[in-house]
């Protein structure tokens, strides 16, 4: 097998701003200056309106659990060493949806729609990412 690629983000001009927020303990989101609608993931434009620039703002960190899966096995060495971990998609209070991990919640307590709050964790060596835990 050829060595599998790194799983660390390959940052660009837009994502650098988002990751700088994380470094300051902030979960940043974007919104449409015209409609106020929040968007995730970050882009240099509004999805569906490529000629309009979004504005950044700090999210409250409140969310509900849309769905999750407890990953028990992974073929990727980096993630195999993390198993079991809880991959999730959460609905942020501001209206956008993001992919994340749920941390510090036992498997039997996980429920769709449960309230969550953001927490920042070093999920890989050298990488801090927003995760969520029970509110």
């Amino acid at each position, binding site marked *: 097998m050829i060595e599998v690629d790194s*799983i660390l983000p390959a940052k660009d001009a837009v994502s650098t701003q988002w990751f700088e927020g994380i470094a300051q303990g902030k979960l940043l989101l974007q919104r449409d200056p015209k409609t106020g609608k929040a968007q995730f993931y970050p882009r240099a434009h509004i999805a569906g309106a490529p000629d309009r620039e979004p504005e950044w703002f700090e999210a409250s960190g409140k969310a509900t659990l849309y769905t999750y899966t407890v990953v028990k096995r992974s073929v990727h060495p980096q993630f195999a060493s993390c198993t079991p971990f809880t991959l999730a998609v959460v609905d942020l209070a501001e209206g956008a949806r993001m992919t994340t991990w749920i941390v510090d919640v036992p498997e039997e307590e996980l429920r769709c729609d449960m309230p969550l709050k953001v927490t920042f964790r070093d999920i890989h060596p050298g990488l801090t990412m927003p995760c969520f835990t029970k509110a």
Partner: protein
Amino acid sequence: MTASDAFPRGSACIVGAFESPRRKAPNIHPYQIHAEVIGAALADSGIGIEEVDGFATAASFPAEAGWQLNAVEIAEYVGLKPSWIDSTDLGGAMSLSHVGHAVAAINAGLCKVAVISYASSGRSWQLPATDFNTGRSGPGQYEVPYGASTISAYALAATRYMHQYGLTSEQLAQIAVQMRAYAALNPQAMYRNPITVDEVLSSPMISTPLHKLDCCVVSDSGGALVITSKERARDSKRGKGPVVLGFGEAASHAQMNQMADMTTTAAEFSGKRAFATAGLTPADIKVAQIYDSFTITVALSLEALGFCKRGEVGEFVASGQLAPGGRLPINTDGGGLSSNHSGRRGMYAIIEAVRQLRGESPGYQLDNPELCLVNGTGGWLSATATLILGKAS
């Protein structure tokens, strides 16, 4: 005619079809399988390679060994000189798109005989069958670090659907059990020993709620189709092969955080369009090939296509509607769950539909079906394509 039903219904036929019997092919480059299946599909049609002027394929998955210009390279390797080329890439649904596009191209006079091929050594080729949904730059950098893999993406949808509608793991397992029962009849199927619901539920948990036996096989294989106009088909070896009556395709999302409703798929749109272009409804369809990368893929697709109401697929499955004599036997060769899935199953699903309509299924053959629907799902419920094929008339 509205845009949604603008499709040259019944103007082209599938006159050649071949699924490779290979399932484990260590040290065989996927391009070799392309050549094998194209040769066999052309032999099945009785049309010579010199008549082929259209070609569609895609080989962007690592185990397909394609690089830039992969359709061009595969044409070169096989020795095709196409003047109509399509490399639409909808993941597992791609071969269905290629059929729909080829029918339109033939109808428009862009080509006369189109070959569509697919091959992958998902099991054995040295390149890794990547576990990630997307790359780690651009949109993927917000998802890849969390380990969103193909299996876990489908598991996310399964968790949400089960929460909303009360579908059980036992009901999902029954899908795998029925596909294995069809595979038991198919000498070429990868796994043929019958399984029980308990065996599915006690197989290793991969990503909750999906067990190992909720997931498709991983094979090395390929397949090819030959498509031509109804007029040219009359003089081919197979006569008027199955006709393409309806077609639709739709894209939904790439990142899982962009999927608006994880309890349904883009088949709501591709299916609706396929039925509209064919002038048919779900009630007309008595057998179908429904992409089964995972048991949940089948469950979501059956509802999205309108074979049962939203929230009712668990009961539909539990009451035996997918079994012989049920409302809708599906994946009559054993499907991806038990027969063949080398990375993108769409091609094999089309081939099994052709075999059903010819009366040649290697698995469970229905008594003289008039129609067969094929639904392909690509990526992580990202894109779908739907075909409705009819028996030659």
